[in-house]
């Protein structure tokens, strides 16, 4: 009897010592919300994908075959040689517009840019997140990790405290996800519209009563670099639906 108890104790300790497997926010949702994401004929984000598809045909197809866009969203943020720093997918779309299409950049949270992001992200659905292997991205990714672990705001929380230490538990009734950016850009039921990762990060900062970074700030890019590295290998489930 004592031997069995000892074996059970060791087994439990061994199980507890293993890191929790990584979960996408999709897995934390109610079944009916998952159903919204699963079905392209019901997923509201598909309206933006349709818009993005048409804009892509007008502005981008002159250089890029749609089929070649597979896997692109899964590799961003990525190094931009001219700027000498990593850029997000949204920033890359705008850089392309300015440099090659000679068109004005699209505003960061505009439906037009979200549509293009959603269209591109859809092309990477199911593919694993692959952080940019370019070694020069490392200091920016490290800065992102520093931001992730830094306590901020009136509530004095760091991202890590909730999303690394207490995922699966609840904060004020809301389930804390692990916070992997596998579904972006997402249709968030609370927003009743689309948003990219930057919008979500701003909400998080606001939530702990911190001053969010300015729009387009490098802080968001660095955080996204780190988050994508933290989620490396996980499958994209974009464009996602979230509560």
């Amino acid at each position: 009897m004592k031997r069995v108890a000892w074996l059970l104790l060791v087994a439990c300790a061994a199980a507890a010592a293993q890191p929790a497997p990584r979960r996408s926010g999709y897995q934390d949702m109610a079944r009916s919300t998952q159903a919204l994401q699963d079905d392209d004929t019901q997923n509201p984000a598909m309206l933006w994908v349709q818009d993005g598809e048409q804009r892509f045909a007008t502005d981008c197809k002159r250089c890029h075959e749609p089929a070649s866009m597979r896997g692109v969203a899964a590799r961003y943020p990525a190094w931009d040689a001219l700027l000498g720093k990593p850029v997000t997918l949204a920033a890359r779309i705008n850089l392309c517009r300015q440099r090659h299409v000679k068109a004005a950049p699209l505003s960061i949270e505009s439906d037009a840019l979200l549509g293009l992001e959603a269209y591109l992200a859809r092309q990477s659905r199911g593919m694993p997140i692959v952080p940019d292997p370019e070694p020069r991205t490392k200091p920016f990714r490290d800065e992102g990790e520093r931001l992730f672990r830094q306590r901020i705001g009136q509530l004095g929380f760091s991202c890590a405290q909730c999303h690394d230490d207490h995922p699966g538990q609840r904060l004020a009734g809301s389930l804390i996800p692990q916070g992997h950016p596998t579904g972006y850009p997402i249709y968030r039921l609370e927003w009743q519209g689309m948003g990219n990762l930057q919008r979500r990060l701003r909400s998080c900062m606001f939530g702990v009563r911190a001053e969010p970074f300015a729009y387009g700030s490098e802080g968001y890019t660095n955080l996204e670099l780190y988050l994508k590295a933290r989620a490396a290998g996980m499958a994209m489930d974009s464009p996602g639906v979230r509560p």
Partner: protein
Amino acid sequence: MTTRRALLAAGGLVLLVRPAWATPESLRKAIDTFAGGKDVRNGRVTLAIDTLVENGNAVPVSVSVQSPMTAADHVQRIAIFTPQNPLPEVVVFHLSPLNGRAQVSTRMRMATSQPVIALAQMNDGSVWRHSVDVVVTLAACLEGN
């Protein structure tokens, strides 16, 4: 003494302004209007909705009615009502034998936990009902946006 009376008088004049939300009266009126004075009976209608909803902003809901959908016997209208939303009406669907089946779906908003009521009116004027109690756990968001 005078100051206190003045203050009390001023306080009494403050009107409590509150948006007018659905009341049992407005719900009853909305249902009466739909039913055209006919009695509403339970049965024949099935309202499919989650009984526990994590976000009241977009709640999937389906209503199906047993009916052959022939010219002689079909569903003309299906409506959904909520007693505790700002308004009692949610939607009214218009069907005919051309649909072949009486089943409709949409996504609705729910302001709070409440029963959701589906009514169906047949071509003979009869009205049938199904009601489901739904608990809404709106995310107690710390975030504004």
